């Protein structure tokens, strides 16, 4: 495979409330930032991830082209998935060998609607959605199946929020407190916060990557797998698709110093850690992770960006970024990056 690296990453200072910015206003600063960091104004390929249902209108990605200033017309595509999959599409496109750079971005304003209810719309419309189980109820089923101790979940949230407070881009959330359940066994603080935000990444191939930055975060493995949709067909305590993707991406071929995991509920971190077979020494979500900022549709891309950042700034030499999609970790993408 052709050598491809993350050479720049930028994100918004994520917000828990609607600050009145449109999606195109939200994405412009991160786009400007990665352009400034790389000195690139044009890219061989551009790909983005977003979701119409967050905006409540079709074609939420169309106005982003205005922020991009896509003129003259650009070679561009879009996934109605987390932008981590846009990065995957861009990585594939760079494998063709005729272009050397790609711009990837994702954005989402979940403050505009009721995310729990909106996510219900991704269930089988005939047999599952009519049951009325929302996203948190689904997650609670998985949390029960995991059988995690309350103390372990609390520690995950405490650590994530503390790291989030130290991360200028994440939300400032207090120490987890309160014993009331949201949906048994999940408490309100086990759930990723409603967040508005955006992120952008630049990928570059071979010599261009070396030219653009001192320590490119080389993608040495990237793979994703989907599982059956119906929860009854899966062992909810395990994430087989994460384990498969990890094997395909070669996670176990070396030490993983930092892992950024797309865990939108505290128990998901436990499932993912196990599936990825991460050793004790791996730092999980030093950015605070999704429990400290969850700009839906950009959250997965941010995991890859954050994991890359540790290589770009020299604080780690092998890191992992994970992204997920679908109810109860149905679809998982694993990226391994090395200095």
């Amino acid at each position: 495979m052709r050598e491809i690296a993350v050479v720049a990453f930028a994100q918004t200072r994520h917000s828990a409330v609607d600050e009145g910015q449109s999606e195109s206003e939200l994405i412009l600063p991160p786009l400007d930032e990665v352009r400034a960091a790389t000195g690139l104004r044009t890219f061989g390929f551009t790909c983005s991830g977003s979701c119409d249902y967050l905006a409540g209108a079709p074609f939420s990605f169309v106005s982003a082209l205005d922020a991009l200033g896509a003129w003259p017309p650009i070679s561009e595509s879009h996934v109605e998935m987390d932008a981590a999959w846009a990065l995957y599409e861009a990585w594939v496109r760079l494998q063709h060998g005729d272009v050397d750079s790609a711009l990837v971005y994702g954005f989402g304003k979940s403050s505009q609607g009721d995310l729990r209810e909106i996510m219900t719309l991704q269930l089988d419309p005939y047999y599952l959605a009519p049951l009325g189980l929302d996203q948190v109820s689904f997650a609670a089923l998985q949390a029960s199946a995991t059988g995690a101790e309350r103390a372990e979940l609390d520690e995950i949230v405490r650590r994530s929020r503390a790291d989030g407070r130290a991360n200028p881009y994440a939300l400032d959330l207090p120490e987890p407190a309160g014993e009331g359940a949201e949906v048994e066994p999940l408490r309100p603080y086990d759930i990723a916060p409603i967040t508005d935000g955006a992120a952008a990444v630049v990928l570059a191939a071979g010599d261009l990557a070396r030219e653009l930055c001192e320590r490119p975060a080389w993608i040495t493995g990237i793979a994703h797998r989907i599982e059956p949709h119906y929860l009854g067909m899966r062992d909810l305590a395990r994430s087989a698709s994460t384990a498969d993707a990890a094997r395909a991406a070669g996670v176990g071929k070396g030490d993983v110093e930092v892992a950024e995991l797309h865990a939108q509920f505290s128990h998901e971190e436990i499932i993912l850690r196990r599936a990825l077979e991460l050793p004790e020494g791996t730092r999980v979500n030093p950015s605070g992770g999704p429990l400290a900022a969850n700009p839906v549709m950009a959250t997965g891309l941010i995991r890859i960006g954050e994991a890359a950042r540790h290589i770009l700034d020299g604080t780690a030499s092998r890191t992992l970024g994970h992204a997920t999609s679908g109810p109860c970790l149905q679809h998982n993408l694993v990226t391994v990056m090395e200095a």
Partner: protein
Amino acid sequence: MSNPCAVIGVGQTRYTTKRRDVSIAGLVREAALRALQDAGLTWQDIDAVVIGKAPDLFEGVMMPEAYLADALGAAGKPMMRVHTAGSVGGSTALVGASLIQGGVHDRVLVVAFEKQSESNATWALSTHQPFSASLVVGAGGYFAPHIREYIRRSGAPEHIGHLVAVKDRQNALKNPYAHLRIPGINLKMVESTPMLWEPIRYLDTCPSSDGACAMVLSSAGKLTDSTPAWVLGTAMRSEPIFRAGRDTVNPQGGKDCAADVYRQAGITDPRREIDVAEVYVPFSWYEPMWLENLGFATEGEGWKLTESGATALDGDIPWNASGGVLSSNPIGASGLIRFAEAALQVRGMAGEHQVDGARRALGHAYGGGAQFFAMWMVGSDRP
């Protein structure tokens, strides 16, 4: 530079207003199974699945790839969901082809669908984001002014659109999958239908269809078919919808996209070197407009090509031999159908609407405010 890719299987459903007998999953599975059967393969032979459809609001299912993973045999495999507005069907084929051209997979199933009967697409297209209110209703409301501007610039007589409306429906009578099959279709019939959006009459527009289309794409080493359709060139282009000064009648993105595909395929004179084209024409007037945009005619002259009969099935450059979008429009799938029909033509498998000896075919799709373009060129000879 990239690895060769070929189409080895095509599957379509019979396009119709309402497929009450199947769920969304049943619809996409029907097309996928037919594509697998055409390729002589089973689900196990597929490395990855790419699915595309137009806005999720059309069926009210958000990110339906999660729900459709089971029906498409994707469990345990990579699955991607593409959405690039009306061009999405074309983009879906290109993302699938990209996986093979990039050397990541050997066999990819691409599927696109729309089950328009689950909701009302015109109204799903008429909700707008806060602070960008619009009085436009549906796609016809958006595109009619662009057509009027084309007529003003080119001086085309008003019956040109109707000629396309008749020609494409005549072709549809030869395509067993086509939705609109109107025996005895003629100019008078089109002229007598109500005006929807000046100058678009009822029969100048595409229908609302339920349907799905699928293709099996393969690397050169994993062919199962003796008559594959080789991918000779692929390109996508996008431009901003609100850019002042952008020409929405003859968009730069379409010109650039075509130029890129022609360059890859070694085409210098599209009208002479391309044998058949499946082009996204949802409103009849878009045939002359795209004839110019895609370089088959010089600017202002496209309508003369249409008028001369050159784009008819027995003309020198047949456009939409399948009946096109004007005859079948499961929106998200419409682009993929164009790409698949182009492949069928160069494989010699287009049945009654086969263009004799077709060796090079263009598949085209556009979307958004005529700002997203996806195209490919396929051929019978390996590049």
